[in-house]
């Protein structure tokens, strides 16, 4: 039976993909298989209902490197008779998707949000034009390599395992990239995707010290502080986990407050599903006001403390 093969270099992402894989499997009459390569947790897949878990213990798989893992997955996919390969759309996962699809000479889609089955093929929603539009795209022929956004699915609950493990013998060319050092990022545990209230700041903020005032507003609202990309990548005032938008997190809060943010699409795509949007900006023509339910034309340095005081009122 043709299979849906699930893989991510991060087990927790792969487990989330299983939720999507199960739905597709039911509609298409395919079984769900997983590749637990290197140090991945084969039992974790079994207890989440996977029917066949492919493992391999090659030395080359100890560390993730996309070109090596592309070779491994091509071989596993053959063995599993995979018709669909679901990967996590992380940075490593996107590189893997391109390598693997090119190796197999098939089409690939990355950053897929919602997945649907139409005429026996998977149709993916993904942002286009920087997030200004949502495109529904499908791979017309052959094996479908699809990298799914990590936040798109929910992991199935653990249950009694019923599937089996198949160890495969892989032939792999070693990596030509040498890892010299790894510096972990400080783990910021803020759950931007799940937050009910987001207080987002942008380059209207004049200095790092002013984050305190933004924090106080977020606390008064029971929300989290998030930011536009330049505040994290250029200024480094906030960790990158707080970036909202195309290359950051996509939120769905009841309330999003945007302070000193111009409202370019790559940002607004991250908050456009918010229930209510509030914008504060000195420029009354700022595009963010087109997206907002309520807007205050004014200096955030004045508005934020007053708003916090009024809320505490």
């Amino acid at each position, binding site marked *: 039976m043709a299979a849906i093969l699930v893989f991510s270099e991060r087990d927790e992402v792969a487990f989330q993909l299983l939720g999507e894989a199960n739905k597709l499997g039911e509609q298409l009459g395919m079984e769900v298989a997983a590749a637990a390569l290197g140090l991945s947790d084969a039992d974790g897949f079994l207890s989440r209902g996977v029917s066949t878990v492919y493992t391999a213990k090659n030395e080359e798989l100890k560390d993730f490197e*996309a070109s090596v893992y592309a070779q491994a997955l091509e071989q596993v996919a053959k063995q599993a008779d995979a018709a669909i390969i679901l990967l996590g759309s992380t940075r490593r996962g996107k590189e893997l998707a391109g390598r693997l699809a090119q190796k197999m000479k098939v089409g690939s889609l990355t950053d897929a949000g919602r997945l649907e089955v139409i005429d026996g093929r998977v149709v993916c929603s993904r942002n286009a034009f920087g997030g200004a539009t949502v495109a529904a795209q499908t791979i017309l022929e052959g094996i479908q390599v699809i990298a799914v956004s990590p936040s798109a699915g929910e992991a199935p609950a653990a249950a009694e395992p019923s599937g089996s493990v198949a160890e495969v013998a892989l032939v792999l060319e070693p990596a030509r990239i040498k890892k010299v050092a790894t510096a972990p990022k400080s783990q910021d545990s803020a759950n931007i995707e799940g937050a009910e209230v987001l207080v987002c700041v942008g380059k209207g903020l004049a200095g790092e010290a002013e984050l305190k005032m933004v924090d106080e507003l977020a606390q008064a609202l029971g929300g989290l502080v998030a930011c536009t990309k330049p505040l994290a990548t250029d200024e480094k005032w906030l960790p990158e986990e707080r970036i909202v938008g195309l290359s950051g997190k996509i939120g769905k809060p*009841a309330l999003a407050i945007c302070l000193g943010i111009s409202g370019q699409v790559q940002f607004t795509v991250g908050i456009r599903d918010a229930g209510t949007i509030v914008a504060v900006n000195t420029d009354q023509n700022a595009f963010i006001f087109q997206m907002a339910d309520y807007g205050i034309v004014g200096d955030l340095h004045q508005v934020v403390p007053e708003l916090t005081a009024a809320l505490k009122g």
Partner: protein
Amino acid sequence: MNIYVCVKQTVDLQQVRIRKETREPVLDGVPLTIGNIDKNALEEGVRLRDKLGGKVIGVSAGSEELNDTIKEALAMGADEAIMIIAPELEGAESSTVAMALAKAIEKTGEIGIILLGEGSSDNYSGQVGPRIAEILDLPQITYVSSLEAEGNTVKAVRNLEDCFETVEAEMPVVVSVVSEINEPRIPAVTQILKAGRKPKQIYSPAELGVEIAGSQIKTISNLAPEQDRKRLLFQEGVGQDVKSLVAALESEGLLGR
């Protein structure tokens, strides 16, 4: 040594508007430009050339209108340009574009580094780089936020979700960059004038042996999501505005969470 930089021509996204009735993007008359992050790739190429010597060659696949974009790349410091031109290459899928770029690079000569952006402005799929690496059987370093080269060795820092990873590889190598790697220069007028005189090579896909088959990726629809916002602007002075806002949020039940 040749440093190739792949630059894509796209519409200036800041100027794309949405037709309200149909939710379709309006692309007519929107100026074309080099992708945002491709400018970072180009800047990095120029910076490396200034240190290592050799040539920076801008490479682009697209329609006839490519000339302006390539001129922008030459003004930003590329020494030469290669264009692969065919109407079907405009908005073509990653596999076709990657094949055209890879074949043109291979034909041009010795490869030191092939630079790309982490994602193109309009499609942002990050697929062209890994596909080129696979076609040319080269190592690749993706999502690079800092890059150095010495002799034949490239040392890079990758910005990944959970860590910064420092890696090394030998040239030839494919490198994709993130926007924080540098600040792209704005070309001086003299550079813009010089750009028109720099060498340009044009290929058709057929000349490169690239077959443009029917598209494997089908776009079924591409619309802006429904947005229904109140767009109420308070403009009575900060004190009053804050009061009005708090009252509005209160009435929507958004406070006291």
